[in-house]
């Protein structure tokens, strides 16, 4: 109802006024409530239409490709699309059926057809993912089967290679007969299926992915910790200096931030390599002999040093913006009440920096777990992270489904951290410089 104290209500009342039923109306006679709802709907629509073009752009060029990648991680029709008859036989006969004459005939026909169509390599590659060492089995069978295989099929195929009778091979082919599989995810956590279809751990020497995930986690944590140790004093200094001086020193933080990543990585190679500047300096100072130059790059140490340098601004900037707002009189009050400077720092100052610390640490950790370029260039063998394994599967082994499965697991981890970041810090508070 119109409130005499509310000036807006007064205006509305004058222009439209109350009708006989007691509803407020606008000047042109519509109910005020509906008019307001309509205008706020229009404002919402207008705001949304401003965002829509970009939203569509990002959905198409970013979200959709990632969806496509996720689909790859569960779908691989290399076998099922090129071996249709055997796929149909697997479909008709339940697990545990011994391969009968019909199965061998289907295998022979498919092998001959795939050899003709030159897709036998694709089939072999697909089976090879689940049973290493079988790619050549398919390609050599394809060479022999090009002119067709004569019955009795079972004997003819077993004559090519005894491995064709291996129950494990048939079990793997049965799994591959379905284009959708979770096997790449199993492989990404070092698990596989035995010939009964049960999930088991892969042999010890092939367990690489879990180790790599753990290494990525621990290295990222180490990098986050070193950025904190180096970033905290600097942010504190910048926040407590007078504006003019801190702006000047801030340039030293922002310049690395604006410098090309490849330039910074190159610099670290130049500085840290065995014939590099740091080793030369240590030899010149007589700290180490010329024969015992330190190996500081192309290993984990190199990855940690270079990535700490690269990610340090992401820790300093949020810490700085929080520290800037801390009122110095709290610490002074603590001191005047008898706290030592250490107690005042620990109990009064440090807790107030926690929002900035949380923001910086989460951001650095999120960026570190997905880092690719720097570990690839300075990591050597021991400093590679999970991203480098994804790249290797994409560009060298061409096992795209495996790369997609590893990427999906990494993505899940990053998205969880991103969600936490949004909850704790809010994406709106992300600042660049």
């Amino acid at each position, binding site marked *: 109802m119109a409130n005499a104290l509310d000036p807006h209500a007064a205006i509305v009342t004058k222009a439209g006024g109350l009708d006989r039923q007691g509803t407020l109306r606008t000047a042109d006679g519509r109910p005020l409530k509906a008019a307001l709802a309509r205008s706020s709907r229009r404002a*919402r629509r207008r705001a*949304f239409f*401003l*965002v829509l*073009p*970009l*939203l569509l752009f*990002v*959905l198409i*060029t*970013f979200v*959709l*490709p*990632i*969806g*496509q*990648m996720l689909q*790859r991680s569960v779908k691989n029709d290399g076998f099922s699309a090129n071996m249709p008859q055997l796929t149909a036989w697997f479909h008709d006969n339940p697990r545990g059926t011994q391969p009968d004459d019909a199965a061998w005939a289907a295998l022979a026909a498919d092998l001959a057809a795939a050899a003709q169509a030159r897709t036998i390599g694709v089939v072999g590659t697909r089976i090879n993912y689940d049973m290493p060492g079988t790619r050549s089995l398919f390609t050599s069978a394809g060479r022999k089967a090009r002119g067709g295989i004569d019955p009795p099929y079972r004997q003819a195929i077993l004559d090519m290679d005894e491995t064709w009778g291996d129950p494990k091979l048939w079990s793997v082919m049965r799994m591959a007969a379905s284009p959708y599989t979770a096997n790449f995810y199993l492989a990404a956590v070092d698990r596989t299926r035995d010939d009964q279809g049960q999930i088991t751990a892969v042999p010890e020497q092939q367990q690489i992915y879990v180790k790599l995930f753990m290494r990525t986690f621990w290295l990222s944590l180490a990098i986050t910790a070193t950025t904190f140790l*180096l970033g905290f*004093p*600097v942010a504190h200094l910048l926040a*407590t200096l007078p504006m003019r001086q801190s702006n000047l020193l801030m340039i*030293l933080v*922002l*310049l*690395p931030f*604006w*410098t*090309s990543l*490849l330039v*910074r990585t*190159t*610099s*670290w190679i*130049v500085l840290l*390599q065995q*014939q*590099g*500047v740091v080793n*030369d300096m240590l030899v010149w100072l007589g700290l180490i002999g010329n024969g015992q130059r330190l190996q500081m790059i192309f290993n984990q140490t190199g990855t940690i040093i270079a990535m700490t*340098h690269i990610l340090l601004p992401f820790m300093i900037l949020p810490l700085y913006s929080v520290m800037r707002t801390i009122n110095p009189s709290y610490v002074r009050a603590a001191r005047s009440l008898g706290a030592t*400077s250490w107690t005042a720092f620990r109990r009064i100052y440090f807790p107030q920096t926690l929002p900035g610390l949380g923001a910086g640490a989460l951001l650095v950790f999120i960026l570190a*777990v*997905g880092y690719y*370029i720097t570990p690839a*260039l300075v990591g050597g063998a021991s400093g590679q992270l999970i*991203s480098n394994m994804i790249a290797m599967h*994409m*560009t060298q082994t061409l096992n795209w489904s495996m*790369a997609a499965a590893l*990427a999906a697991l*990494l993505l899940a981890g*990053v*998205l969880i951290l*991103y969600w936490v970041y*949004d909850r704790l810090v809010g994406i*709106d508070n*992300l600042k*660049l*410089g």
Partner: protein
Amino acid sequence: MALPTYASPLEKVWHYAYLAICAAIFFFLIAPIVVVIPLSFNAEPYFTFTDKMLSLDPEGYSLRWYDSLLTFGMARPDAPRDLTWWADAWQNAKWVNAAKSSIIIGVFSTLVATVLGTLAALGLSRPEMPWRRAIMAILISPMIVPIIITATGMFFFYSNPCEPLTWIGLDPQCGRLAGTYLGVILAHATLGIPFVIITVTATLVGFDQSLNRAAASLGANPRTTFFRITMPLILPGVISGALFAFVTSFDEVVAVLFIAGPDQQTIPRQMWNGIREQISPAILAVATLLVIFSIALLTTVELLRRRSERLRGLTPR
């Protein structure tokens, strides 16, 4: 931060130790960037200071690596340096071509990212924007998702952009985007968008919406209001965002490695190959040029930031 007069001797020692630690950390931050500059003038193909360089002997320094940036890839690098030589350099020198590709891709991706990003930031800063948080999270995610994942997804998408249509039962034929300039430009625009969104929304936080209402009440239509009132005020933020987007594209190598063809040989890609194969001081010459470039950009962005703060009245003049 001055030491209080009541500080004990121990606190004084700690204070100076703290300043020394900070100085060391600043050194750690800046030394790797500065060190490449003198090394790029090395007369020898080494990555360390030679004795001649340390004794400041002019013979220890040379411009040979800068020269090699021009001559590398030229048809006749030893010809006399007349107009044909320069034309040859412009046409064939690998680093010159890399710079051209980088600039083309950078400029166009920045345009796309800035126009779309600014519009979206305007919408996102309106209080009535629906699903603001979720949409913002999606638009910022290209910056958060590891580049290798983005590049992997883009590799599948750009080699066959029509594949997702087969999920809904269609079977269209379309060309590849991978290996084309358009593909790389779209990919880099996606990667640059979060930076535009962040800087422009940050500028709009202090924006006084009543200015727009005042313009409207004085009879300006929405377009006039935007170009005459809003735009001049948020322009510094928009330019900063555009510079961020440009730098992102100018420094991006992973997406380029995954989706670019041999024609889109950008500077970072050329550097990447150089570092992986045989690293020569020519890389340091490029690095020095890039450092100078980033100093110029940083200065511009800082000036813009101050101007924007002054315009919005955040800091007294």
